């Protein structure tokens, strides 16, 4: 019997017995047994006899083998796993399982003799009752029931076993019942007609199925038909079975009350692991060495604010003295308004100009715009740019403390004595001497102050009466007059005129008879000395005829063009300048009384521009292009060289005291030298806008004047103190204008009246003017 049953389902074979033996044993145990069987199979125990099996079952109670192959470590076929899962599940719900066996028992006892139909119904009921439990357990139970019910009941009817029924085809019986009596086939001679009639009449025909084992017809109940239908459709047999039950996790994070196994803990579980120890020590070492940093404590102080300046100490303050705070952004003006006054908006021209300009040259970085209401104002497209540029300025721009010149411009103007207090000086133009037709290059006032001589490019020398501006005489000299000079000696009345390469000495006889006579005497005196000097470069000759009647008395023929003549204060010596780069003979000094000429210099020291005698001492001033040299005529050596700091000296005048010199230059400057002070100019005056042509000192008053191409004569007050410690005080007192500028030439010469604070100027407009 047992053997035959075991050929059915494996578990089915043992379960009934087991239940009979220990009905209270849990399903878990049963499963364990199955596992054991499995293991046995694996370990080739399959050939062992059933007895052994039974023995093992007895041993099961101790669970000794079980602990070895705990569920966790086991790995078998899929089926095994399923079963394991089952067992675990049941483990979880042990309380439920306590109830469950009773159920099964009931089924066993009550329905042993019931038909299959009833059995099916029972099964259904049971499933219904067990629905609360998980689907998996339900399945397992159903399997169990089926197993012991079917095997026993079928055997009750027919004991032939599981043999093909064809074997009984030829017999009248189909098997044997429990008592060993034959079970006869139902007398069935159903032919086609009966079958047909049955089909027609019997409403249950379609659900009538012949049972092969008993040979009787079985009418299927509705449930069974439904079951068949469902199976045909490939559905689950149980109508109430939910395929989509929520999944139940078998392993959960909850610590279970009971251990999975009852096995005592291993020894190794009490001994610390060497491998782990090694790992830990490595980590500890790494932490010790700082290779691994322990997890940072979350620092919540970041982003928390507190009173940072609770205690201000001055020590840090001192360190930051050098720090320059960044300048603030300039505040916006009316132009930036969204609705500016109309005058701040750009006109078309301004806008065009703004667009043309380079962005860095623009006065405003934006175009002013007007919006009629606030809602129309758009976003400013360069906002981020501007902020970024500000950032760049803050960290890339060098900062400097610019001392803002917050100067009142009035304070810059030097405090000078008022010109009013420095009177007298010429203030207004009072007379104009007209008559020349060319530009008047040179003028000179007689030492008496009564006469004025002027030489012009039209080839004439005119003599004017100062007070009335009348031209008394006109002397045609036949050439453009470069320079002329009255003899400063009061007792003679002579005029030296330089034109071309000749120096003429005129006796205009515009004085007392006494004076005229004395000058005649001077001119005629040196007759006897003439033979001494024949080989010289200069020839002296007396004039005759026409020229004599005009008053020209002496002609001193020079080898080159003469630029300037000047008298010594005593009136006997006369110096003439012949500028020439190449020659050493640029300056000649003539002695009138002895009609003698000499060249004082052996060497060429630069282009000579002008010369002058010292008014009292035997000094001689030679103005070259860049400097003024002072020679001692007695010792015959150079005593000083004044650096004019200008490009090209044009004119020079010596103070009547002899300690000061002024130089005018073509680069618009006037330099005042104090000979006691330095060889550098004491003061440079840049009054004039154009080249300075002439400078002059007043003989008596502390005045000096400069004439320039810009058409102005500037009169300055230059007080020279007797006290050597006090420097001269220079104050410009008057700008005199009157001359017209013709052909870029303005005032060409300037000279003071010897006694009055009057100044004469001659200009390119062919006039001579007197300012008083």
């Amino acid at each position, binding site marked *: 019997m047992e053997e035959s049953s075991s050929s059915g389902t494996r578990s089915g074979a043992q379960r009934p017995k087991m239940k009979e033996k220990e009905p209270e044993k849990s399903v878990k145990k049963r499963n364990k047994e199955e596992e054991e069987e499995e293991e046995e199979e694996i370990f080739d125990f399959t050939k062992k006899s059933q007895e052994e099996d039974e023995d093992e079952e007895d041993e099961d109670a101790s669970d000794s083998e079980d602990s070895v192959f705990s569920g966790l470590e086991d790995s078998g076929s899929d089926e095994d796993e399923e079963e394991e899962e089952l067992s675990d599940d049941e483990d979880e719900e042990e309380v439920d399982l306590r109830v469950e066996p009773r159920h099964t028992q009931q089924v066993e006892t009550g329905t042993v003799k019931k038909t299959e139909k009833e059995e099916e119904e029972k099964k259904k009921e049971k499933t219904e009752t067990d629905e609360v439990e998980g689907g998996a357990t339900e399945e397992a139970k159903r399997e169990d029931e089926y197993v012991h019910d079917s095997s026993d009941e079928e055997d009750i009817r027919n004991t032939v076993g599981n043999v093909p029924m064809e074997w009984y085809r030829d017999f009248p019986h189909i098997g044997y019942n429990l008592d060993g009596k034959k079970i006869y086939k139902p007398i069935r001679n159903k032919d086609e007609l009966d079958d047909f009639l049955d089909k027609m009449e019997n409403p249950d025909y379609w659900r009538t199925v012949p049972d092969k084992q008993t040979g009787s017809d079985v009418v299927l109940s509705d449930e069974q038909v439904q079951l068949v239908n469902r199976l045909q459709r490939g559905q689950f047999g149980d109508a109430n079975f939910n395929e989509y039950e929520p999944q139940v996790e078998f392993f959960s994070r909850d610590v279970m009350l009971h251990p999975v196994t009852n096995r005592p803990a291993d020894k190794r579980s009490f001994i610390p692991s060497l491998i782990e120890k090694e790992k830990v020590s490595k980590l500890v070492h790494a932490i010790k060495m700082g290779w691994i940093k322990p997890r940072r404590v979350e620092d919540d102080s970041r982003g928390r604010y507190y009173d940072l*300046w609770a205690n201000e100490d001055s020590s840090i303050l001192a360190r930051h003295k050098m720090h320059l705070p960044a300048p603030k952004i300039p505040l916006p003006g009316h132009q930036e308004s969204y609705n500016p006054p109309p005058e701040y908006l750009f006109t078309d021209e301004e806008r065009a100009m703004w667009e043309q300009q380079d962005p860095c040259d623009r006065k405003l970085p934006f175009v002013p715009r007007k919006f009629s209401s*606030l809602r129309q104002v758009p976003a400013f497209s360069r906002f981020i740019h501007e902020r970024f540029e*500000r950032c760049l300025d803050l960290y890339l721009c060098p900062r400097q403390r610019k001392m803002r010149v917050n100067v009142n411009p009035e304070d810059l103007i030097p405090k000078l004595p008022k010109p009013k207090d420095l009177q007298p000086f010429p203030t207004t133009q009072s007379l104009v001497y007209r008559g020349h037709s060319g530009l008047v290059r040179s003028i000179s006032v007689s030492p008496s102050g009564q006469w004025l001589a002027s030489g012009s490019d039209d080839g004439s020398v005119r003599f004017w009466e100062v007070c009335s501006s009348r031209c008394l005489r006109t002397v045609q000299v036949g050439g453009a007059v470069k320079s002329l000079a009255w003899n400063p000696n009061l007792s003679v009345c002579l005029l030296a005129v330089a034109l071309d390469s000749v120096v003429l000495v005129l006796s205009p006889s515009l004085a007392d008879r006494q004076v005229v006579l004395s000058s005649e005497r001077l001119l005629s005196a040196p007759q006897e000395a003439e033979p001494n000097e024949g080989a010289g470069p200069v020839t002296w000759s007396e004039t005759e005829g026409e020229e004599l009647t005009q008053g020209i008395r002496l002609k001193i023929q020079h080898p080159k063009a003469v630029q300037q003549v000047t008298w010594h204060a005593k009136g006997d010596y006369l110096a003439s300048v012949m500028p020439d780069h190449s020659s050493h003979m640029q300056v000649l000094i003539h002695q009138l009384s002895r009609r003698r000429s000499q060249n004082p210099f052996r060497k060429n020291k630069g282009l000579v521009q002008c010369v002058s005698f010292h008014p009292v001492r035997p000094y001689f001033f030679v103005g070259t292009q860049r400097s003024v040299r002072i020679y001692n005529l007695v010792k015959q050596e150079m005593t000083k060289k004044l650096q004019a700091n200008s490009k090209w000296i044009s004119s020079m005048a010596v103070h009547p005291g002899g300690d000061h010199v002024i130089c005018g230059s073509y680069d618009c400057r006037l330099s005042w030298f104090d000979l006691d002070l330095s060889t550098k100019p004491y003061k440079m005056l840049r009054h004039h806008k154009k080249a300075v042509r002439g400078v002059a000192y007043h003989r008596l008053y502390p005045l000096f004047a400069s004439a320039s191409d810009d058409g102005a004569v500037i009169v300055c007050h230059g007080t020279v103190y007797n006290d050597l410690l006090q420097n001269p005080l220079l104050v410009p007192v008057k700008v005199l204008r009157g001359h017209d500028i013709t052909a870029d030439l303005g005032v060409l010469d300037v000279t003071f009246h010897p006694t009055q604070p009057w100044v004469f100027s001659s200009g390119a407009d062919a006039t001579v003017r007197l300012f008083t």
Partner: protein
Amino acid sequence: MGGLQKKKYERGSATNYITRNKARKKLSLSLPDFRRLCILKGIYPHEPKHKKKVNKGSTAPRTFYLLKDIRFLLHEPIVGKFREYKVFVRKLKKAYGKTEWSSVERLKENKPVYKLDHIIKERYPSFIDALRDIDDALCMCFLFSTFARTGKCHVQTIQLCRRLTVEWMNYVIASRALKKVFISIKGIYYQAEAMGQLITWLVPYQFSHDHPTDVDYRVMATFTEFYTTLLGFINFRLYHSLNLLYPPKLDVKAESELKEENDDDYAMNSESYLEKLSALSASLARVVSTAEEEEAELDQFPVEGEDMANMEAREREQKQEEAQKKLFEGLKFFLNREVPRESLAFLIRCFGGEVSWDKSVCIGSTYEVTDETITHQIVDRPNIDKQYINRYYIQPQWVYDCVNAKIILPVEDYFLGVTLPPHLSPFVEEKDGDYVPPEKLKIMALQRGEKPAHEQEDEEEEEDDDEEEEEEEEEEEEDNEEGEDDEEAEEKNLKKMEEQRSQGKSLTVKVTAGKVKVENPARLEQEEKAEEKRLAIMMMKKKEKYLYDKIMFGKKRKVREANKLAAKRKAHDDAEKSKKKARK
């Protein structure tokens, strides 16, 4: 004889400066890190006096830092953090490359971070120093708070900026510190006075930004990092100076009101709290709840004579300020949805007004449009359908102009659909000689308390007045011209006389009775003075002359510009007038 030869560039200014590259190497930082360090520490380059000397003879353009500054940087703990960060990045990269996720995690947990507190303390040793330098910080934070939360910088930064700016605005409201405000084409300028420091900041209009590509956002972010820290500490201190709770809390009363209304609109309480704060409609909670702040009165010191006048002036100023603080007190405003809510709410609350808006615009509205007690409704649209009788409908510029003028201006010029008067900058302070726009004159007259002539009614009269004025001006001009004419005539006479004189010699000499010249002594004196000055200028030294010329040039340019503006205005007015006439 003689010692060692002195080598060049081993002493003097060459050793005081260091080029940027050398400095970078000395600190062993990459250029971006160096840049960041300079920004955080406020180190800027220096321009040496003799560049060539410092540059060791080369004239190549280089940036120089003071060696002292760089030495100072060497001791900065943040430099170490930068290096740590560099190492961190390297390690992280390695871990990623090896796909060691656990170590990536561990590294990320230990990411080096730095704090800027000590730097702020160091850069601004006293609170006033910090407050003085807050302009840029505010501008930057306001800009960052308007950024969209996309990519350009960390979202946290944006949120932090927003929080700090809201805190700042709440402080300004609480202390009533706002002084001036100006709507420019760039944004809105505000000026407040906190602890005696004038602080100006610029808030961009609420539009999304068109992010330019040629801007280095890293630099901006570094600045913002510093500025947020600075602003946080300053806010803390300022709040405490007013006895306010620092992480600002709304007043209990206000809070409960707000809660009732808007509980369901916002998801989280924490989320909506900042919104409620930024609505600027509720007052803040105080540490010690004082009912009314006692206003400190100026003590009277016995003074004499000249100081007395000063004192009085100061007192008057003080009074005026107090009045300005209460400018909108008692007025109730309602903002329509098209006006910039935040700016106007800020302004109105700063000057004591009550303000509300539509509930759908923002959280925190306190009353509805239908409230009968509303005195002014601010509207920025040509017309409005439903108007209430007992309130003014005005354009937003009125509020701004009132604040700048420090008085409540007449509302007529700001009604709906009316052409607004120009909005003038309150930051321009005209000195004598500068051009003053006529609108400013008008406002100044109002401030003095003069009644403006009713323009609409007396327009014609006004025109007449204008014409009269013009005539007067013309007359004046004529006067001037006459004066010039006089001079010219004199000169002509003189010339004629001269000519006569010079020619008189040859011609018949005649004596005519001369006219007595009337000399204006004042003018003569003036001329004399002018000449004196001219002569004195001639005697100036070269350096001073240069300076003087420069100053004078600047002055002349100023005058020229003022004249140009005046001429433009006149031309504009004339054009307008003629247009009006043509329309008539």
